[in-house]
């Protein structure tokens, strides 16, 4: 049995003359949560849709759990949260979820209970008799998430699971995903790199339709050897030389204009005083900051890599 839950080989997809994805060779590992990230137009949703079988490859192949997407043996083994799909407008959402559960093989009575269970997971039990027209955008998103949690799939694919949700609901969904990830492989696409950093162990980065990198999140975030500052305003380039003058500092990264970010890497043998020395240096040079985080966040790391 392969250790990979998804394998692609020379996968490519074009729309007309435009290549949305080109020559993607990627293996998604089993039993972990994997993030799929990249800027707009990088091909995240296209790759996700190829994994799900919504789109057919122009070239190459993709195997999910050792089968082609759409294979009858995958029924009930994968769950998908599609990004833009709409539920039926005239049937109550509870009934639609019950129907989905029945299609996954649940008997009628158990399907009703399963629909109830997943609605509770997204705190929408009271909305089961409402139709899609009677629910807000955020609630519909939660219903769509709920349908992806039906049953006990081997693989859950979530396209932008927290887009359009308020912070409280985002935290709730993140906690549900975290608890499901103990028994299930999960793939998440998101623009929100905090979500990816919080939930994922592996991250696949796409850039301009090509595979940029496939790495462990822990390798990208260097938690113990860097400090990330959110400054009051963008730092001047001169701060680079000021900080580099400290023996312990190995690298200084400035955020793009408007980001107000500063990342300072220091040597691993610098000891506990290193952080204090860096903060003191900023104070002496009159550079105020609003927030300081230990380590380099995925946001900075990915932004840095994508140039």
């Amino acid at each position, binding site marked *: 049995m392969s250790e990979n839950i998804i394998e692609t080989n020379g996968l490519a997809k074009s729309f007309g003359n435009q290549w949305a994805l080109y020559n993607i060779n990627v293996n998604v590992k089993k039993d972990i949560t994997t993030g799929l990230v990249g800027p707009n137009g990088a091909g995240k949703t296209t790759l996700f*849709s190829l994994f*799900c*079988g*919504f*789109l*057919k490859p122009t070239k190459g192949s993709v195997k999910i759990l050792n089968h082609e997407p*759409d*294979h*009858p043996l*995958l*029924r*009930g083994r*994968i*769950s*998908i949260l*599609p990004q*833009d*799909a*709409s*539920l*039926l407008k005239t049937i109550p959402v509870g009934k639609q979820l019950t129907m*989905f559960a029945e*299609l*996954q093989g649940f008997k009628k009575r158990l399907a009703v209970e399963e629909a109830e269970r997943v609605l509770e997971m997204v705190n929408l039990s009271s909305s089961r008799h409402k139709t899609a027209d009677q629910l807000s955008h955020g609630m519909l998103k939660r219903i*769509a998430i709920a*349908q992806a949690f039906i049953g006990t799939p081997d693989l859950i694919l979530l396209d932008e699971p927290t887009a359009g949700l308020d912070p409280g609901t985002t935290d709730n969904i993140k906690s549900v995903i975290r608890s499901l990830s103990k028994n299930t492989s999960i793939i998440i696409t998101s623009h929100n790199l905090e979500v990816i950093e919080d939930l994922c162990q592996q991250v696949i980065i796409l850039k301009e339709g090509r595979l940029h990198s496939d790495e462990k999140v822990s390798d990208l975030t260097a938690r113990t050897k860097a400090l990330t500052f959110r400054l009051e305003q963008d730092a001047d380039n001169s701060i680079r030389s000021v900080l580099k003058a400290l023996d312990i500092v190995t690298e200084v990264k400035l955020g793009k204009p408007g980001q107000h970010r500063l990342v300072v890497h220091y040597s691993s043998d610098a000891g506990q005083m290193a952080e204090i020395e860096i903060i003191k240096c900023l104070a002496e040079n009159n550079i105020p900051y609003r927030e300081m985080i230990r380590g380099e966040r995925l946001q900075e790391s990915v932004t840095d890599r994508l140039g």
Partner: protein
Amino acid sequence: MLSNAETGFILSLFIDPKVIQSLFVGRAPTFSAYFYLAMSSVPMFVLLAASDQTANDIGSKYLRFLTPRCNRLEIFVGRFFGATILISFAYILVTIIAALISMAVDNNGVSLVLADLPLVLVSLVLYLIPFVAFMSLCSVIVGSAGLSALMGVSVYVVMLVIISVIGIKSKDFAEVISYIIPNSTKFQYLQLSWVKMMGASLLVPIYVVAYGLLGWMIFSKRDI
């Protein structure tokens, strides 16, 4: 009134005399008139009623909720059967109402209508099935029911015009070409004879397989 000689003469100006003879001699005239109208309405009614087998769900991407739970072939075939059952049920219901009316208003209505009712029902259902299959083909090509209906009606009308134009030059060739669209068997069904109906019904699976296979080839490969 529908069964007298004068009406027969007037009708023969518009309808094939053979059909008039089969429908209005020795039958309940109201029920026969209903049958003729129902058969004539099948193309347009079915082209509209069966237009949304998969089209709207492709447009709204609702199929993305279904594909992890059932494969595309099940969706395609299920939608075809669903549309066939729904439209057949509508015709059966209206036919039963027409039969009751005919029993009430025609001379010897009860016995004449009861004798024809099974044949009328079977003929209507068999005649509409190829149109549903035709629309399952149109429905997988576009992303909305409106566009699917427009496409179905346009193709149907354009084909009728082409066949008519070819018919001016060569009647035999036009007759062969007319089998591309599913109303080529209408004349046989309208004669209200079990033998003719069974002959015409042989084409039903051919139409279903031809349109269905073409539709499936597109649906199985298209992005949803």
